[in-house]
């Protein structure tokens, strides 16, 4: 039983009356009044043996509060049941609290192991000194040090005072992987008990003394301006306390969220939508198409793809299109801010605490050290919460209101103010020689700049873009990759796996088109193209072709590749595959089984995944992320599409922007393979291959190529 679990049982035992009391304020759990032993910023142990492990990345469902704590606990030889988690705030001790790119585990691996091992060595030495025996004769186990020969045992709690007086070893000895007790096992989410009892505190659940709830009217068009507003009706709404003006918006302050939202809806506001007020999806695609006709920026080149393509006996080309996408996190945008006495305190469900701190300081004209950011649990991130926009709204409103406020977005606000992932066009061309061998390949992606990260700059480092194009793993002698990024007139941002889904969809579907044209099996074609030199170096990254081939073979074998999936009456069945390497790290292959009805309706029956993400930290977490990524990918492939009308997002509810539901669940099979001794990312990696695996399965079933998403039944009839 974990400490959080025990704590919760203790609270629960107080009975139903206690349950009606307001929930505790955020951030109190896990704080030890006096922790005699704190050898680093990552852990503290009290005289009672309670072990606080500090997590410096944001928990948004990817399980990072469990997996990072597991890394520390493994090296510390802590008793997992006594572990308490504390969420770090950005500051001198926590300089990288950003959470994105599926990087938390890999980037924390070395520092957390070293922190855990250093503390363990100090505790062992303290025990050895106490007993007058060599430290090498002692071992640490389950929160205690044991002298192997005599069987003497001292708990960490008994040793903390003596251990604290010892120097912190600079190069502690890390455990051998074969001795791992926790890592690689299935450990349930440490926040689980809080979640299933409703006691887990997300941003929107946070309360601070004296706060009011706030809802804002802002222009739904990028670049729009406030012309005038009238507050009489808003102020007449019961529960509304005040209306304040901030730069770019009008905020209604109230006693509860409902009054704030009702008051906001009662505001009469006139906007000047500005130059983007007439934008439509068609116009945006027009901009992409016009840009795609212009020469692109070359981001990878080998051989002479242009010449070889022009003279190849067989040539293929295709354009693939993916739509604008919303994040639609279930917890809508919200943040609490308090601005007082030249300082600011923020409670936010954010993936970018440092950025929130920095930008809030800039907005207020104070030093970043004067801004404290508390990172709450997050009800879904997926890249949306890398933006600081909603936190800054709260800061601006709190400053104007002169008291703490919680800004809460309605579901419609959340769609209208989303930083949508941009539509993307990928143009591919291939040349086959007389024997049908793939000898030339060009890949050009055209998309909008991600405005979430700052203004468009044509000279910005393309960072290996297009991801999925530049790091194309296949051995093709003549290859040219281009990147066409254009300024965005709508708010755009990162989205789970960012550039990979659009480019891997195009690449993997096109490869199947080539297989069909040259009469090859899609698996055999890929394996042949992966048999080249491995690893090969692309930019700063190594790409492990042989590893990808291994993973692909496992996915194929486990899915029964080669056989046709069972026929269903009145439906055409097919099986398709796709594979990818994410930034030279995690290797993944997926096989989808689908059937297509007479009206073009697609059912996905099964998705088999094989993945090598290096050393597994939490097996349950890795499997869960694969399951999650597949469902995310299916929502993307089958349903999701944001359109723009009058310069703004046209979808404002889950009715307009459907996502996959339980009755559409395929069977999921996940095979996690042993690999690299260093853990690699897993949160984003399972997304990109889903759409092409499904599209390739549809092509196998119907002969029809899907070249735009979402998949439309009308395209398959």
């Amino acid at each position: 039983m974990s400490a959080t679990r025990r704590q919760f049982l203790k609270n629960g035992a107080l009975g139903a009356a206690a349950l009606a009391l307001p929930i505790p304020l955020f951030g109190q759990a896990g704080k030890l009044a006096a922790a005699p032993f704190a050898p680093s910023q990552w852990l503290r142990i009290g005289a009672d043996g309670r072990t606080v492990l500090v997590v410096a990345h944001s928990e948004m469902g990817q399980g990072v509060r469990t997996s990072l704590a597991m890394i520390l606990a493994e090296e510390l030889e802590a008793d997992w049941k006594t572990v308490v988690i504390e969420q770090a705030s950005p500051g001198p001790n926590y300089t990288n609290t950003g959470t994105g790119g599926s990087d938390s585990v890999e980037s924390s691996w070395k520092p957390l192991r070293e922190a855990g091992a250093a503390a363990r060595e100090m505790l062992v030495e303290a025990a050895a000194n106490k007993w007058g025996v060599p430290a090498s004769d002692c071992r640490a186990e389950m929160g205690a040090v044991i002298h192997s020969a005599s069987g003497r045992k001292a708990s960490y709690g008994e040793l903390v005072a003596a251990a604290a007086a010892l120097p912190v070893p600079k190069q502690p000895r890390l455990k051998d992987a074969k001795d791992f007790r926790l890592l690689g096992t299935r450990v349930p989410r440490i926040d689980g008990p809080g979640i299933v009892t409703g006691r887990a505190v997300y941003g929107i659940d946070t309360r601070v003394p004296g706060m009011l709830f706030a809802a804002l009217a802002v222009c739904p068009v990028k670049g729009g301006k406030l012309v005038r507003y009238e507050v009489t009706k808003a102020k007449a709404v019961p529960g509304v306390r005040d209306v304040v003006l901030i730069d770019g918006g009008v905020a209604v302050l109230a006693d509860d969220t409902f009054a704030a939202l009702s008051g906001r809806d009662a505001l009469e506001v006139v906007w000047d939508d500005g130059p983007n007020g007439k934008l439509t999806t068609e116009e945006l695609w027009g901009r992409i198409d016009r840009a795609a006709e212009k020469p692109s920026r070359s981001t990878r080149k080998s051989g002479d793809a242009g010449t070889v393509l022009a003279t190849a006996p067989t040539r293929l080309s295709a354009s693939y299109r993916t739509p604008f996408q919303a994040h639609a996190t279930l917890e809508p945008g919200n943040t609490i801010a308090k601005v007082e006495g030249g300082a600011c305190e923020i409670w936010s469900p954010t993936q970018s605490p440092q950025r929130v701190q920095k930008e809030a300081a800039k907005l207020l004209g104070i030093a970043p050290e004067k801004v404290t950011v508390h990172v709450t649990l997050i009800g879904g991130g997926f890249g949306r919460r890398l933006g600081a926009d909603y936190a800054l709204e709260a800061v601006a409103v709190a400053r104007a209101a002169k008291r703490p406020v919680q800004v809460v977005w309605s579901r419609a606000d959340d769609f209208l103010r989303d930083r949508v992932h941009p539509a993307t066009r990928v143009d591919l061309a291939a040349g086959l020689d007389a024997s049908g061998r793939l000898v030339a390949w060009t890949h050009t992606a055209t998309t909008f700049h991600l405005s979430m990260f700052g203004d468009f700059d044509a000279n910005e480092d393309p960072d290996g873009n297009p991801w999925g194009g530049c790091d194309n793993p296949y051995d093709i002698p003549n290859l040219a990759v281009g990147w066409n990024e254009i300024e965005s007139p709508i708010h755009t941002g990162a989205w789970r796996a960012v550039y990979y889904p659009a480019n891997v969809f195009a690449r993997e579907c096109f490869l199947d088109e080539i297989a069909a044209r040259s009469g090859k099996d899609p698996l055999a074609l890929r394996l042949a193209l992966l048999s080249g030199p491995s690893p090969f170096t692309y930019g700063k990254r190594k790409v492990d072709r042989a590893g990808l081939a291994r993973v692909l073979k496992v996915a194929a074998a486990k899915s029964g590749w080669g056989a046709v999936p069972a026929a269903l009456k009145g439906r055409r069945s097919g099986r398709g595959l796709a594979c990818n390497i994410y930034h030279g790290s995690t290797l993944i292959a997926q096989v989808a089984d689908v059937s297509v009805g007479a009206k073009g309706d697609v059912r996905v029956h099964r998705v088999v995944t094989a993945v090598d993400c290096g050393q597994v930290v939490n097996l349950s977490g890795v499997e869960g992320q694969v399951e999650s990524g597949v469902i995310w990918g299916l929502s993307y492939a089958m349903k999701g599409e944001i359109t723009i009308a009058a310069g703004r997002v046209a979808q404002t509810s889950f009715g307009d922007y459907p996502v996959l539901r339980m009755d559409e669940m395929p069977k999921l099979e996940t095979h996690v393979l042993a690999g690299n001794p260093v853990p690699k990312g897993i949160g984003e990696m399972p997304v990109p291959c889903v759409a092409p695996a499904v599209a390739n399965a549809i092509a196998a079933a119907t002969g029809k190529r899907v070249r735009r998403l979402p998949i439309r039944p009308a395209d398959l009839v």
Partner: protein
Amino acid sequence: MAKYSITVNGRTQSIEAGNPEMPLLWVLRDTLGLTGTKYGCGAGACGSCTVHVDGQAMRSCQVPIQAAAGRKVTTIEGLSEDGRHPCQLAWLAEDVAQCGYCQPGMIMTTAALVAGKKPAGAEQIEAALSAHICRCGTYGRMQQAVARVVAGAKA
């Protein structure tokens, strides 16, 4: 301001509200501080705000306070005294939750269907859960948790 008497998690309370249309969701969250009931869409489309009203699973964002008056409301905080309701235990055993935001609603829908003399089967529960949204896509593990709950209810 009108007063409404509502029994929440076994305790009868007199609650003031300026607007009789104020959804039960916000009464629970903002007036009573029971934030385990989540706001996801405000339109009954996601199920995150599901609570029991007189034993029936209902979307609290669609229940005005005046309609809740005189009724017995159970929220996720009051589902069990010790966090050991069969649904809660099954959810933990299957390690269902990812971000976890939708899970209280999922659990409340399931708990309402397995309560009483004629507990629902997995198919009926899954049909009801298909009216909910989990953006993390934990549906597969949730199905396993439901299977556990159903097996337990039969035993």
